[in-house]
C-alpha cells in the first residue's frame, strides 16, 4: 500500500491539472459565445415606481412598435398574464423588449430561445432578440407569483 501511495499522488496531481484545464476551457468558451452568439442577457434599462406602472408612462400603454426594421415592445408582466396580450413579429427582424412588473416578480421565458428574464418590480429589464424561425412560441412565467402562476402562459407569434 505504501508504494501505491506515490502512484496515487501522481494521478491526483494530474487529475487536478486536468480539472483546472477543463474549467479554463469552459470559461474561454463562455466568453467567446457571449461575444459572438448574440448576447441575450437582460440588462437594466431604468428604474421605475412599481405602483405607477399601470397608470403612467410607456408601460401603462403596453404595445409593440415598429421602428424601421426593428421592433420595440413595452411589456407588463403582471399577476397573472402579460400585456399586450398578443405580440406579433416578423422573422429576421430584431425585437427589443422592455419588461417590468406592477406587482411581484415574474418570469419572461420564451420557449426555444435564450430569452429568460427575471422581471423585478421597480426594474425595467431590456433584452433583444431576433426570431429566425416563424411559428408560435410559448411565453412562460417561470417565477412563482401567486396562486395563478401556472396559468401565466402567453404566446408570441412570429410571422414569416
Amino acid at each position, binding site marked *: *500500500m505504501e508504494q*501505491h*501511495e506515490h502512484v*496515487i*499522488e501522481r*494521478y*491526483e496531481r494530474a*487529475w*487536478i491539472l486536468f*480539472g*483546472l484545464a477543463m*474549467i479554463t476551457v*469552459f*470559461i474561454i*468558451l*463562455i*466568453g467567446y*459565445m*457571449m461575444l459572438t*452568439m448574440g*448576447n*441575450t*442577457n*437582460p*440588462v*437594466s434599462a431604468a*428604474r421605475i*415606481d*412599481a*405602483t405607477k406602472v399601470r397608470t403612467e408612462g410607456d408601460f401603462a400603454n403596453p404595445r409593440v412598435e415598429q421602428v424601421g426594421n426593428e421592433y420595440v415592445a413595452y411589456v407588463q408582466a403582471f*399577476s397573472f398574464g402579460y400585456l399586450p396580450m398578443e405580440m406579433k413579429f416578423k422573422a429576421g427582424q430584431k425585437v427589443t423588449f422592455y419588461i417590468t412588473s406592477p*406587482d*411581484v*416578480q415574474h*418570469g419572461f*421565458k420564451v*420557449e426555444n430561445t*435564450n*430569452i*429568460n*428574464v*427575471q422581471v*423585478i*418590480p*421597480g*426594474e425595467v429589464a*431590456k433584452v433583444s432578440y431576433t426570431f429566425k424561425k416563424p411559428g408560435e412560441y*410559448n411565453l*412562460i*412565467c*417561470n*417565477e*412563482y*407569483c*401567486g*396562486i395563478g*402562476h*401556472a*396559468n401565466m*402562459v402567453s404566446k408570441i407569434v412570429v410571422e414569416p
Partner: protein
Amino acid sequence: MAVKTFPKIDVYAGAPEKKYTLFMLMLGFIALMVGTLFGPLQAFNYGGLDLYPFLKPVFQSYYQGLTIHGVLNAIIFTQLFGQAIMVYLPAKELGLRPNMTLAWVSFWMALIGLLIAALPLLGNAASVLYTFYPPLKAHWAFYVGAALFVLSSYVSIYLVLEMWSRWKRANPGKITPLATYMSVTFWLMWFLASLGLVVEALFLIAWSLGLVAGVDPLLMRTLFWYTGHPIVYFWLLPAYTLAYVTLPKLAGGKLVSDPLSRLVFLLFLLFSVPVGFHHQFADPGIAPYWKMIHTILTMMVAVPSLITAFTIAASLEVAGRANGGKGLLGWIGALPWNNPTVLAFLLGFLAFIPGGAGGIVNASFNLNQNIHNTVWIPGHFHLQVGTLVTMAAMGTAFWLIPHLTGKPLVARGMALASQWLWFLGMFIMTFSLHWMGFLYAVPRRSHIAGSPIAMEAYRESSAWMVLNIVSGVILLIAAILFFYVIYATALQSRRDPERVMSEVPFSEVISKPEGSSLALMTERVWFWFGIAVVLVVLAYGPVLFQMFTNMNPVPGQRLW
C-alpha cells in the same frame, strides 16, 4: 413466552453530547419526513396528476405544500443535520465536551424558531416558497421564526471554535485533527455566508411588522443569493466530512490523503460565497461583467468537488483492494454493498456525477439562460441535496442512531431497500425533470396539473411526465421504508450496547498531515478567513454599495 429484559443502562450519563446530537438529528429527520410527504405529490403534479383537491381542508394549495417541502427539507433538515454532525464529530475526535448549556440553547432556539415559523406555514399565511422573494409578503412570524432558527447555528459556530481553541491551548504547535479542521472551516464559511441572509432578515422583519412600507426586491434577491449559494455547501459539507473521515473506514480502507482533504475545505472557505450572481444571471440591475466575474469564481468552486471525487474514489479503491477486489473494476464489487451506510454513500456519489455536470452547465452564464427557472433546476439539485446529501444523512443515521442510543439497527434489509429505491426514484425523476426543462421549457414551481392552460402548453413533454409519476411512487415507498427503519430503531425499548458501534468510525489515513507543507499552509485558518472576507468584499462590495445607496422599495403583496 418469557420476556427477555435488558438491563437499564443510562447511555448518556457519561456522554451528554450524545443526547444533544440525537435530539438535533431526530428533529431534523422529523422535518425531513413532513417535508418529503409533499415530494411525491409534486412529482405527480409534473406527471399531470393533481391530488391537491383531496388535501383541501388541510392544505390550501400546491404552493403551500411546496413552501413546506422546500423549507423543511432544504433549510430545517439540512441545518439540523449539520448542527448534529459538525459539532459531534470534532467533540469525539478531540475528546472534548462542547459547552452543554449552549448546545441545548442552540437546540431550543432551533425548535422554537421552527415552531414559530411553522404556524404561518401551516395556516397558509406564508406560501412564499423557501426563497421568499419580495414583494411576496409573508406573515411576520415566518421571518421571525426562520431568523431564530438560523441564528441557532451561530451558537454551533461558537461551540466548535471554543472546543478548537481549548484543544489548541492544550496542544501547542500541533496540526488540528482532520474532522475538526473540516468543522472549523465549515462553520467559519457559514458565518461569512450567512451575513447576507441576516441583513435581509432585518429588512423583512421590519417590513412584515409594518415598520417600513416596502423593500427593494433586487437588493433582497442579491442579499438572499449572497447566502443562497454557499448555503448549498453548508448542506453538502457535512456529507463530505462524513465521506472523508468515516466512509473509507466503513468501506474497509483508508483515506488516501489528509493534506489534500484539508485543501478541499480551505477552497470551500475561500470560494463558496463570492459567486451568488450565478443565481441572478437573468436579473436586470446587475451588469454583465459582474456576472462574468461570478461565473469564473463559480467555476473555481467546482475544483474542490473535483478533488473530492478523486480522493473519495481513490479511498474506495484502496478499500475494495484491501477487501480482495482485483483487476481494473473488481474493487468495486468488493466494496461492502450490503452495509446500508456504505451503500447510501456509494449511490449518493454516483448521482453526484451527473449532478455536478449539470451544476457546471448552470454556472455557465449563457447556458443558464436556457434552463433558468425551468424544472431542469429541481432536476439538478435533487441529485445534489435530494440524493447525495440526503442519502449521506440517511446512511449515517443507520450507524449513528445505534451509536448514540445503544439500540441496534432494526430491519437492515429494509434499510438497504430504502436506499436502492431512493436512488432509483431520484434518478428517474431528475432525469425526466432535466429533459422537461431543457427541451420544453416547463417552468419549475408551477401547479401545472391544476391548470388546463399549462397542460396544453407542455403537452409535448407528456412522455417524460409518465416517468415523474413512476418516480413519485418509488420515492414514496423508499421514504416509508426509511422512516420506518429509523423510528423503529430509535423507539425500540431494547438497548444492546454490545451490538452497536461504540466509537465513531474515524478513518486512518495514508498520507499524513505531519511534515506536509500543504497541511501547514492550510492550518493558518484565520489568515485564510481574512482572504475569504477580502474576496467577498471585492466580488460583492461595489454592487451592494450601489444597491444600498439607490434603494427602490416596493409594497408587499399577498397573492395566494
